[in-house]
C-alpha cells in the first residue's frame, strides 16, 4: 500500500469541503438505514459507510464534463458528484421528485445533467458502459473521461476482464476505480480471487495502476488527480485500487456471519471521517466547532431532504408504462 502522501496543499477551506462532503454522505446513509427500518425505503439498500473517502476523493479530480458510472452502493457517489440531496432522498422514497423519477430507488440513481450514469445493480455491469462513454469522448475529440466505480467482487466477472482489455486496446479515457472493501457481499477477497492483488490484474492488461488507501480522502484525491491528468495527457485508461472497508452490512438483510465484529471495530477506528478530522485538527486546519457545525449542517440538510421526500407526490399509477421507450424531451 502506498503511504499517505504528506499534506502540503491542503487548505483549511478545502479540508472543510472534503469533511463536509463525507459528513453529508455519512449522515445521509445513517438516516437511510433508519428510514429503511421504518419502511420508508424498501427493496435492497446498500450503504456506503466507511467508504466515503473514495467517492469524495475521486470526484475532486473530475470536471463537470466527465461521466460517472457507479454501482448499487452509489448514494455517496451521487452526493459527491453534486446530485441534490433532496432529489436523492426522494428517489429513496420512490417519489416522482426523485432524481430517477422514483422508478429506480436506492440502486438506480441517475442524474444525466451531472453526467451521472447510474447505479447499476448487476455486478460488473457498469464497466462496459463506462468504456462506451469514454469511447464517445475519444471519438468526439473531447477531453472528457469516464470514471467507473466498482467493487472488488466485480473483478471475478468476465465483464471486468473484457472491459479492461478493450479500454487498454483502444486507449480509452477511463478511470477505473476499484473500491476494494474486502468482501464481495459475504465472500472475502481471498475466497474469491486466486490473485488478490487487483492492481496487478489491471497491470496485466497494460493499464497504469496503483493501489491506494481508500480510507484516506486526501490520498484518494491526490491519486485521482494524477490519474486524471495522465488520461487527459493521452495516457489511456488508468486504474486505482482503493482499499477501503464497508462499516455497515452488505445490505439491510445481512447478519454478517462472514466477518468478525472485532474486525469491523478495528476498521471503524480507521474510518475516513475519524482519521481525516483528527489529522486536520492536528494541523490546525479545522476546529472542533467547525466539525460540529458541519455535522449540524449535514443533519439539517438530511432533515430537509426527508421533509422534501415526505412532502413529494407519488408518480400517478397511470404513468406506469411511461419511459419504456424514449420520450420526446420537453
Amino acid at each position, binding site marked *: 500500500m502506498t503511504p499517505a502522501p504528506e499534506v502540503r496543499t491542503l487548505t483549511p477551506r478545502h479540508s472543510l469541503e472534503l469533511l463536509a462532503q463525507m459528513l453529508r454522505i455519512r449522515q445521509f446513509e445513517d438516516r437511510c438505514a433508519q428510514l429503511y427500518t421504518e419502511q420508508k425505503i*424498501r*427493496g*435492497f439498500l446498500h450503504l456506503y459507510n466507511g467508504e466515503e473517502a473514495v467517492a469524495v476523493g475521486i470526484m475532486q479530480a473530475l470536471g463537470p464534463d466527465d461521466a460517472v458510472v457507479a454501482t448499487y452502493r452509489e448514494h455517496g457517489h451521487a452526493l459527491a458528484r453534486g446530485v441534490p440531496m433532496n432529489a436523492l432522498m426522494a428517489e429513496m*422514497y*420512490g*417519489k416522482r421528485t426523485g432524481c430517477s423519477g*422514483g*422508478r*429506480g*430507488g*436506492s*440502486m*438506480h440513481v441517475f442524474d444525466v445533467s451531472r453526467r451521472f450514469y447510474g447505479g*447499476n*445493480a*448487476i*455486478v*460488473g*455491469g457498469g464497466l462496459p458502459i463506462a468504456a462506451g462513454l469514454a469511447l464517445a469522448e475519444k471519438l468526439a475529440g473531447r477531453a472528457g473521461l469516464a470514471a467507473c466505480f466498482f467493487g472488488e*467482487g*466485480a473483478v*471475478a*466477472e*468476465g*465483464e471486468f476482464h473484457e472491459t479492461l482489455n478493450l479500454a487498454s486496446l483502444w486507449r480509452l479515457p477511463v478511470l477505473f476505480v476499484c473500491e476494494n472493501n474486502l468482501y*464481495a*457481499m*459475504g*465472500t*472475502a477477497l481471498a*475466497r*474469491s*480471487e486466486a490473485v488478490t492483488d487487483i492492481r496487478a490484474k489491471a497491470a496485466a492488461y497494460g493499464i497504469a495502476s496503483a493501489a491506494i488507501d481508500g480510507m484516506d480522502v486526501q490520498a484518494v484525491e491526490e491519486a485521482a488527480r494524477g490519474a486524471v491528468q495522465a488520461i487527459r495527457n493521452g495516457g489511456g485508461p488508468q486504474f486505482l485500487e482503493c482499499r477501503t472497508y464497508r462499516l455497515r452490512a452488505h445490505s439491510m438483510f*445481512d*447478519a454478517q*456471519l*462472514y466477518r468478525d465484529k472485532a474486525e469491523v471495530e478495528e476498521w471503524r477506528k480507521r474510518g475516513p471521517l475519524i482519521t481525516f478530522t483528527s489529522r486536520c485538527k492536528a494541523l490546525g486546519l479545522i476546529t472542533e466547532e467547525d466539525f460540529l457545525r458541519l455535522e449540524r449542517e449535514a443533519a439539517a440538510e438530511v432533515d430537509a431532504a426527508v421533509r422534501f421526500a415526505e412532502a413529494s407526490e*407519488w*408518480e400517478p*399509477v397511470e404513468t*406506469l*408504462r411511461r419511459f*419504456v421507450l424514449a420520450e420526446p424531451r420537453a
Partner: protein
Amino acid sequence: MMSYREALREGLREALQKDPKVFLMGEDVGRYGGCYAVTKNLLAEFGAERIRDTPLSESAFVGAGIGAALAGLRPIVEIMTVNFSLLALDQILNNAATLCHMSGGQCPVPLVIRMATGAGRQLAAQHSHSFEGWYAHIPGLRIVAPATIEDARGMLGAALRSPDPVLIFEHIALLNREGELTGAAVDIDKGAIRRPGRDLTVLTYGASLFKCLDAAAQLAAAGIEIEVLDLRTLRPLDDALIMESVRRTHRALIVDEGWRSGSLSAELGMRIVEQAFFDLDAPIARVCTAEVPIPYPKHLEDAALPSVEEIVATARAMVAHES
C-alpha cells in the same frame, strides 16, 4: 409448519445426505448463508468442499457445473437471482441445453440450477425478473417452478433424478410462506389442480398461484367456481392436464408474472387454441405483468404485477352473462 425457505433447505439437505456426488455451489451460499438465507448453516453441516462459495463469475461456475455433471457428479448450482443468470446464459443455452443433442446423445447434462425469481419486493428493474418462461423456450432444458411447500422441498430431488439439465425457479415472494409437509412423492412432470372448479380454468405457477387461490375464494363467494391449475413444470408443459381442465370448464385464464409478448402465457394460449379450440366458450384471457421494467415504488410495482383484483375482474368478465 415449515416455511418455503426451510423447505428448500430441507430439500438441499436431503439431496446432500443421500448422494455424495451431490454438491452445491454459488455466490455466497456458504459463509453468507445464501442471499435469501436458503443455504444457511449448510456449510457447517456439509463442509466447504460440498457447499462451495464461488466468485461472482456466473458464466464460469455454471459452466463448471456443466463440466462436473458431464464427469458424473451431481452439481446443484445456485444463481443468486434470475437476472444474474443472464451472465451465464451462454453456458445454459449454448452448452447445458445443447451438449446432449450435438454429441449425438453422448453428453447428457444432469445439472440442476436453482435461482431466485420474481418481483414483489421493490427490488426495481434489475432484480425483479421472471424469466422462467423465457427459459421454457429452450429445448434441452426442463423448467420447474415450485409454488407449494411440498414442491419447494421435493422438486430438487426429482430434478436430481433427471438425466437432463433442470432449472428450478424459486419465487422470492414465497420464501416466508408457511405450510404443512405431507410427505407425498413429488414429480417434475405433471401439473396439479390446486382448487377444482367448473366455470373457468386458471393456469398459473409460482407465486401467482396464491393470488389465483385468493381470487378463487373471492369468486366462490360470488358463485363463480374457478379451477386453479398449478403448472409446476413449465417445460415440458402438462398438456394433457391443461386440456382436460379447459375442456371441462370451457374457459382459460392465464396468470403469469412474466411479460406477455412472446411469452409462456402466449404459448399456453396457443396450445389451447390448437388442442381445445372447439371447447372454448370465451376468448382466452391473460393477466400478466405490465410490459414495463419493474418500477421501484410499491404502488407502481403493484400496478405492474398481476393482482388478485385483476384476476377476479378478468374471471368475472369471462363468465359474465348479460341477463
